[in-house]
């Protein structure tokens, strides 16, 4: 194994640049180094002006997503040695506006997330606990939504989804996965409210089942599945509403 690898890093400084440009850095190539370790090496030893987000370095906080050789990746879980001999292209997550260097603007998702009401909705909306009363949930009921509860909001799926790239109005894979997570939760009774949001034009219908969201998801959430299942559910509800007019449900 060579002892160093070249990183081609996309730099964009809004104060001075009108568009991103490439900058290259050579970093040590060690078998236990991730792309993030490489970037930190640059930040600490070579060029302190490089900006990127990271925190947990264990694949759970969701902040270090970047496009590595064109694929959205968590850089803390992507090893440099897999790209030897290099160079490795490191760009900000695709489909998002770039704030600076490798940092993208996530406000769009942060605005969309609350729209799908990702919280438990109950008809008897308790705001506080009744002591000692737990909502029972069997392991099977837990399994029904577990997968969709694993989303770390890393936004790799948005970076991979061409539909989102073309139409930023599309609510996007992770948001639907989270809606589905609560819909499938046996403790929740909010399906109707979420349906009203997702059945809209910019809800689930824009998705053409490209499936890239699922392929890049580091947590195996399978948002593509959530969306298609949601479409089926929305369609069934609509048929039901047609067959049983005046809210006979």
């Amino acid at each position: 194994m060579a002892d160093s690898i070249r990183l081609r890093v996309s730099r964009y400084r809004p104060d001075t640049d009108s568009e991103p440009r490439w900058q290259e850095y050579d970093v040590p190539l060690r078998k236990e180094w991730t792309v993030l370790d490489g970037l930190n090496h640059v930040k600490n030893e070579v060029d302190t002006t490089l900006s990127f987000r990271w925190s947990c370095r264990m694949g759970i906080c969701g902040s270090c997503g970047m496009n590595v050789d064109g694929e959205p990746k968590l850089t803390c879980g992507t090893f440099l040695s897999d790209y030897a001999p290099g160079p490795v292209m490191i760009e900000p997550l695709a489909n998002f506006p770039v704030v600076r260097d490798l940092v993208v603007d996530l406000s769009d998702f942060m605005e969309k997330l609350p729209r799908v009401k990702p919280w438990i909705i109950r008809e008897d909306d308790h705001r506080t606990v009744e002591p000692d009363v737990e909502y029972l949930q069997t392991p099977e009921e837990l399994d029904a939504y577990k997968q969709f509860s694993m989303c770390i909001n890393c936004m790799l799926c948005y970076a991979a989804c061409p539909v989102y790239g073309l139409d930023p109005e599309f609510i996007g894979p992770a948001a639907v996965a989270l809606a589905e997570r609560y819909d499938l939760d046996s403790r929740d009774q909010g399906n109707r409210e979420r349906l009203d949001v997702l059945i809209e034009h910019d809800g689930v219908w824009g998705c053409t089942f490209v499936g890239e969201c699922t392929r890049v998801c580091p947590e195996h959430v399978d948002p593509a599945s959530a969306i298609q299942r949601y479409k089926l559910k929305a369609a069934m509800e609509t048929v039901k509403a047609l067959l049983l007019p005046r809210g006979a449900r």
Partner: protein
Amino acid sequence: MTRRRVEPLVWLMFSAGGVLAAVFLPILVLLFGLAFPLGWLDPPDHEHLLAVISHPVTLVVLLGLFVLMLVHSAHRFRYTLYDGLQIKAQRTVAVLCYGAAIVGSVATLAVLWSAAQAS
């Protein structure tokens, strides 16, 4: 109550058409598109075909099959134009695609009906 929207219904037809296309089309293309015209197999004789086609069950089945497959392809093609070619005139595209599917469906009905009358 949920607001009524057409998207879910179109999508349902798209999906149904997709399933039908997936299971019916390979054999149909193979037989009618290649095997019979090219003589790999002897084409069925006209009388038998006419009998099959003019049977009411066949009529209904073929009508459903063709209409759903047309909606399927119109719907899919519409989004291919949006995404693949980034066509901005989305409304026009939609009208053209679904319009074609509707025209095709009417034609299907006419053709099937006239064929059924022929026997």
